[in-house]
């Protein structure tokens, strides 16, 4: 039971992070390797806001999310937009550089010390016993709730507007999409904004549950296989992939070797990739036809 | 009186994608040294047929015999190794390579250079490069592409790219040449050049040609025979004049424009 509870809690964080990769990738085929650092930045924004306004911790949550959204749009406008049409590799590397830059800035602003926003806010993360003897904390429950909400909201958003299709079109061939009247820069900024917004949600939850330091960005890297397994351009794939990886990870820790916990799921998924080379729900990106 | 065995003989070829029957039992053969034109409406399955011969698609049923040998289901590189070259409808050149490199790649099957000889570029590696460079230059000369030698193909106009595509196939010194819409997008004048090249390829190099094309006049003038494909089936075959006069063909394929 606890195993399932752990799986759900871990999966929800993975899902919240993986969504960000998917949304940006879907719209621009850019792999945002600064996603973890952008998440970290949102965490620090949250911490900064919580400490700056003592006594009003809840107010800091939407404020941090807005900052996070704007950060995403800003990153697109300043760093990614100039890369349009250039080799994707370069764009990906720009995000890597951005990650380094953000880590440096955070070090300057807050030093490398570990911070605990929840302790500052005065709230407590309390365990809730569940039927079956399992335990989840308030924040675990909140993350699960948020993951579900975010997925439903995005799904609704993309299903209702034609934006989803336009994003994929823009990703495949920005010039043609533009010639068809798609405002690609709007589409791209929006996708970056959404991506960092959701990362902000993840950051607030994670920093409240575990900790905040300039290195929490690495969990962004751990959510990356989730996005791949689901199919990098598929929102629908994120949920099953997140659950599957979290479950495999928990199983590996418990029954195989904790040491291999980050490798075992990875290997298992590779096996899956051989069966479905484009991810669980992804679309084939290359057409073999002449 | 025994007919000479055809170079390529396709027997009852069938191919489907999901529910879509692309080839529904097509039989066609191409004699040595002839130009057989394959025409038909869009989506009739012409390109798919070439893809089957060439090994890019694996037919669901049917046989493909080439020079007496069954090549059905062979991988493309093996088919190419037997001397079957092809050009593509959407060009499919190596966009970031130069024209010369594209042609030299056509020489791939005739070369032996491996990692060590290539890496040394000395002795056998160097000699082989020289020999094949000469062959590639001959093709450049033949197609009058010499001036583009060092240009990356992505920067060439469409018409030139079509020619490079033909050159790349010619560099393979094929016995059978599968041509997919070489003339689309060319002006009349360029089509005349193309016609000249194709005739020379046939006569001087003795290459057998299976040619998919939409320009009816071009096909009628150059082909020895025409086969018409319609919804995956062969609806007519024979000498150009007879086929084009066939009312079934006129209705399915030519419409009004054909007679104009």
């Amino acid at each position, binding site marked *: 039971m606890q195993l399932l509870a752990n799986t759900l809690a*871990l999966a929800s964080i993975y899902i919240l992070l993986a969504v960000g990769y998917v949304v940006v990738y879907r719209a621009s085929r850019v792999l945002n390797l600064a996603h973890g650092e952008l998440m970290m930045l949102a965490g620090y924004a949250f911490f900064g806001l919580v400490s700056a306004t003592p006594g009003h911790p809840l107010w800091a949550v939407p404020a941090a999310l807005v900052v996070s959204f704007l950060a995403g749009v800003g990153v697109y406008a300043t760093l990614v937009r100039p890369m349009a049409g250039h080799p994707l590799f370069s764009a990906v590397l720009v995000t890597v550089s951005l990650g380094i830059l953000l880590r440096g800035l955070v070090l300057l602003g807050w030093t*490398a010390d570990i911070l605990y926003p929840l*302790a500052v806010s005065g709230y407590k993360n309390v365990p809730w016993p569940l039927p079956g003897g399992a*335990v989840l904390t308030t924040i675990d429950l909140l993350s699960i709730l948020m993951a579900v909400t975010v997925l439903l909201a995005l799904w609704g958003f993309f299903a209702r507007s034609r934006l989803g299709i336009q994003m994929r079109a823009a990703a495949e061939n920005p010039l043609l999409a533009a010639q068809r009247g798609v405002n690609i820069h709007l589409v791209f900024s929006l996708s970056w904004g959404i991506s960092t917004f959701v990362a902000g949600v993840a950051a607030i939850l994670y920093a409240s549950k575990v900790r905040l330091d300039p290195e929490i960005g690495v969990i962004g890297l751990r959510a990356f296989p989730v996005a791949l397994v689901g199919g990098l351009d598929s929102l629908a794939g994120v949920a099953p992939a997140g659950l599957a990886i979290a479950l495999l990870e928990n199983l590996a*820790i418990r029954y195989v070797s904790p040491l291999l*916990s980050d490798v075992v799921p990875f290997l298992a998924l590779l096996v899956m990739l051989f069966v479905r080379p484009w991810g669980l729900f992804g679309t084939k990106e290359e057409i073999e036809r002449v | 009186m025994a007919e000479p065995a055809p170079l390529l003989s396709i027997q009852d070829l069938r191919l489907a994608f999901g529910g879509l029957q692309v080839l529904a039992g097509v039989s066609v053969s191409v004699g040595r040294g002839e130009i057989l034109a394959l025409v038909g409406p869009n989506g009739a399955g012409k390109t798919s047929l070439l893809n089957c011969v060439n090994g890019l698609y694996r037919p669901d049923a049917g046989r493909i015999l080439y020079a007496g040998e069954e090549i059905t289901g062979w991988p493309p590189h093996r088919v190419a190794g037997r001397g079957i070259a092809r050009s593509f409808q959407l060009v499919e050149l190596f966009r970031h390579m130069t024209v010369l490199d594209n042609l030299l790649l056509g020489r791939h099957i005739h070369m032996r250079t491996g990692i060590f000889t290539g890496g040394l570029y000395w002795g056998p590696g160097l000699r082989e490069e020289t020999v094949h460079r000469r062959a590639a230059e001959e093709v450049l000369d033949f197609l009058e592409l010499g001036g583009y030698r060092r240009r990356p193909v992505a920067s060439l106009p469409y018409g030139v790219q079509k020619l490079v595509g033909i050159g790349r196939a010619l560099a393979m010194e094929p016995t059978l040449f599968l041509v997919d819409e070489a003339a689309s997008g060319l002006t009349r004048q360029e089509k005349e050049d193309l016609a000249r090249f194709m005739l020379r390829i046939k006569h001087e190099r003795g290459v057998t040609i299976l040619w998919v094309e939409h320009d009816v006049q071009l096909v009628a003038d150059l082909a020895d025979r025409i086969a018409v494909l319609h919804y995956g089936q062969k609806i007519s075959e024979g000498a150009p004049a007879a086929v084009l006069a066939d009312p079934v063909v006129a209705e399915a394929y030519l419409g009004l424009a054909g007679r104009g």
Partner: protein
Amino acid sequence: QEPYKVGITAAITGPAAVEYAARVETFRAYMSKVNSEGGINGHPIQLGYEDDRGEPARAATNAKKLVEQDKVVLLVNTSVSATYKPVMATVTEAKTPLLFGGGVCPQEVFPPANPLMFCTTSFAAQIDSDFAVRFMKEASKDKVRLGTATMDIPIARIGIDAAEAVGRKIGIEIVGRVTMPPGTADFTPFSSKLKDAGANWVFAWSPWSFEIGPYEALLNLGWQGNYMLYGHQQPIDAAYPRLNRENLYALVGASILAEGLPELKAMQEIAAKHGASRLDVEGGVAAVAVHEALKACGWPCSREKLQGAMSGLSITVKGVKGGPIQWSRDNHFRTEQWYKVYRWDSARQRAVTAKEWTKVDVAEKLKELREIIK
């Protein structure tokens, strides 16, 4: 005045900065205090520092620069254990003394010590573990069912191996062990494995995040057992009041601020006065050692002379450690190691002593351990 040149390569940024940045700051603050008081034998200390980000390749370059180009008499390493080998390779070629002042003490400083290498920090994976395990057995009325948690770096694994071997030897039941990969995001699955294994004690010996992370996850799971970790002074000082739990034991080789000792307060003031935003005791101890070593070396001080002086040095840091750090010819760790165990008293809101300073004879202990672990 011609200065004493000392070089330091440290993980000032990068993933390990959490551990080391404060240490370097304290070290530097102490050095500037010495200089402000007129230096040593009338000569100032010139500190050259380089950031290695915890990357071995950068550490190698830093060492080369400091040793070959800047010609320092002493090189200090305040970084992750991965940087040790490249730095060692350089100092060995150039015959320069090397002080590990902040990270774990490597094999090379224990007897028989490499003549060039010295260590001031308290972290000694195996001996620490041995002491911790014995303490648990002693402190608990019930039978100890021990779970262990460690980060997946070779040196930490060696420490935990020792803990388990000693535990088994003295009749402790080892119920589970989790080795956590460096990128671990969520400690809950690991902790729930330990909880479900029925551990009533858990011992962790790792970089700080990997000690406190599993503990908090255990708390979230409603676990009630006792947790013992190596008490890195700076973070444990912050963690005690924040968590406010009585079952968290910290094994230390140096005092922590939360105990409220006047000597540490004074040290903190010195650090603050010279620009360190926070005090890290291990950084301070390393600085005192360098100070003492240079004093003993006199002027002029060559690398050779310094090494000789260090081999017989005894450093006392009052109020910080239970006893002196004493180096001998073949033991550059120390001849005796002192330990103390804290726990938190939530009624009084301060750290209290669970076990007073206790001496361990290093040479003997090592011999004993070698037998147990085999």
